[in-house]
């Protein structure tokens, strides 16, 4: 009896959480131009129109390039920082780990506005550099966190064994540390990619007149039009995210990294 009640409760909670997504999926197949569920004559017309929309194609390109660079840059920065925090005892270590690991308490709107005020005078708004710098700040904690997780759960004596048996610091990192922590790195990079790809609020401020990312493009589209096109696009994005997560999970066991 209790078990049955429990199952109902879980189902209801999931339905509540997933309801918006389900609604979006249903709307995306609308035959009409209304932003409401109307499955009288289901069609794929909105998918077709989205895949041909120049603005969205350009936005997707910018988002993809941005997210890729962000993932890479964040790795190059986050991994050494995580290594330093996990393996070296230096002055200010707790400050550094606090700085990079504490949850971001500033509302993203405020952050976006702040970045706009800084970027405007130095002409960084609407550039790849501007968007990448902004996304760097919000994704770096994830990479540091997943890398740290891998580092703290791996056996330090493996690295020590490498050194004793003749590997210098670089060889130790390259041949032992890096392969051991790679699941954490990949998980962090994927999260950075997805967050950067999805990020709307901060991008809205710093995207400006030049480069715009896909979420910003979608937001602008919605301001003037209210047809199921955006819903179709959302479904495409959700599908891409799910595919990425599944592929990574298959390849390196993302779940293991996230849980440990």
């Amino acid at each position: 009896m209790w078990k049955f009640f429990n199952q109902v409760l879980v189902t209801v909670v999931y339905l509540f959480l997933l309801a918006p997504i389900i609604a979006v999926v249903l709307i995306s197949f609308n035959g009409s131009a209304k932003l409401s569920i109307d499955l009288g004559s289901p069609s794929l017309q909105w998918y077709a129109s989205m895949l041909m929309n120049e603005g969205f194609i350009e936005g997707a390109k910018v988002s993809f390039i941005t997210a890729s660079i962000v993932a890479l840059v964040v790795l190059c920065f986050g991994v050494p920082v995580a290594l330093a925090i996990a393996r070296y005892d230096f002055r200010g270590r707790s400050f550094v780990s606090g700085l990079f690991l504490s949850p971001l308490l500033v509302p993203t709107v405020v952050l976006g506005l702040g970045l706009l005020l800084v970027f405007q005078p130095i002409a960084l708004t609407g550039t790849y550099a501007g968007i990448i710098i902004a996304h760097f700040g919000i994704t770096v904690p994830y990479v540091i966190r997943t890398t740290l997780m891998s580092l703290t759960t791996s056996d330090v004596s493996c690295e020590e064994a490498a050194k004793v048996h003749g590997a210098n610091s670089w060889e130790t990192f390259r041949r032992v540390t890096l392969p051991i922590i790679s699941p954490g790195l990949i998980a962090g990079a994927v999260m950075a990619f997805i967050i950067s790809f999805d990020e709307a609020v901060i991008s809205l401020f710093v995207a400006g007149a030049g480069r715009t990312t896909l979420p910003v493009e979608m937001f602008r589209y919605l301001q003037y039009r209210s047809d199921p096109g955006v819903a179709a696009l959302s479904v495409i994005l959700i599908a891409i995210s799910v595919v990425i997560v599944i592929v990574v999970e298959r390849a390196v066991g993302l779940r293991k990294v996230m849980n440990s």
Partner: protein
Amino acid sequence: MSIHTAHLSIRNLQKTYPKTTAPAVDDVCLDVAEGELVALLGPSGCGKTTTLRMVAGLLDPSAGEIVVNGKDVVSTPVHKRRMGMVFQSYALFPHMNIAENVSFGLQMRRLSRAEAAKKADEALDMVQLGHLRDRRPAELSGGQQQRVALARALVIEPTLLLLDEPLSNLDAKLREAMRHEIRSIQQRLGTTTLFVTHDQDEALDMADRIAILNNGRIEQYAPPSEVYDRPATRFVANFVGKANFLDVENVEKLGNDTYRVKTNEFGVLEVRGVDGLDPTRASLVVRPHRLTTTRVDESVKSSRPASIGEVIATSYTGNVQSYEVRLNESAVLRVDQLTDTLRDLRMGDRVQLTFDPAEAYLVSDE
């Protein structure tokens, strides 16, 4: 594998960890001859691992010298010391197969791929694991991982082999087999070896000499039989083997290592003891198997010192039968007898204990 072994001399080595006051390793001096296996023995936390890590180069000493073949290596970085080490957790590289694990050190020394593979195979054959060369460490049992770790350490023909409690994660049967395997390989190769353990049996069984550490200091450094028969301190006597301690008074020095002492239980005795101990801080060690028992009703007048007491506990461990005999309020002695010579005593029996004073040993209480 050829021999590139070394003479090790540790001089006044000290280590105080940051944010601590008491040194973890304090003024340790140790000379290890070429081809010798020396055990660092002591209870958990006495500084064994700290000492070993300083020798390996994984930890910087606060003071002192580590001299290998006449050269102080303290300033030599860890990867250039050419040492082999087996870690307590084995620390095999999980992402490499067994052959890659073993040839790692050779590749770091820039041996050609073919030569490295050949030597790695030889090393794996030496530990009888040639057939597992393509497996991953996770697919091996604890004992097998331990052999791989040993092969990885030995394949580079290290100047010193360092072992940190290498057997503590194995079950009892395997542990004993591995003792002999490690020892025989070490003797065959003639590799100078420093072996850390908290297990006295392991140290007695394997080592040429044993250094007993207590609170970061060496209490005694001597061959196993000497450590056992002539312990330098009460701590050593207690840590290595079982020991009964008798309080002594009126300690009188007769020669370099002979004393006349008075005990409450056995009267005045002439015994051997540590040279130059403080007569006011000494105890007499009598090993449990050196004591013999006779039932009071059948006891004969003995020329040996004797004392009468009551059996208050018995325990049986197969080949040895142990008794606890209370002689007086403060003295309860343990007696070990081989079960073949069993006297079959019971709780409450009154017995006479005797021993040969030549087999007792006077140690300092410090």
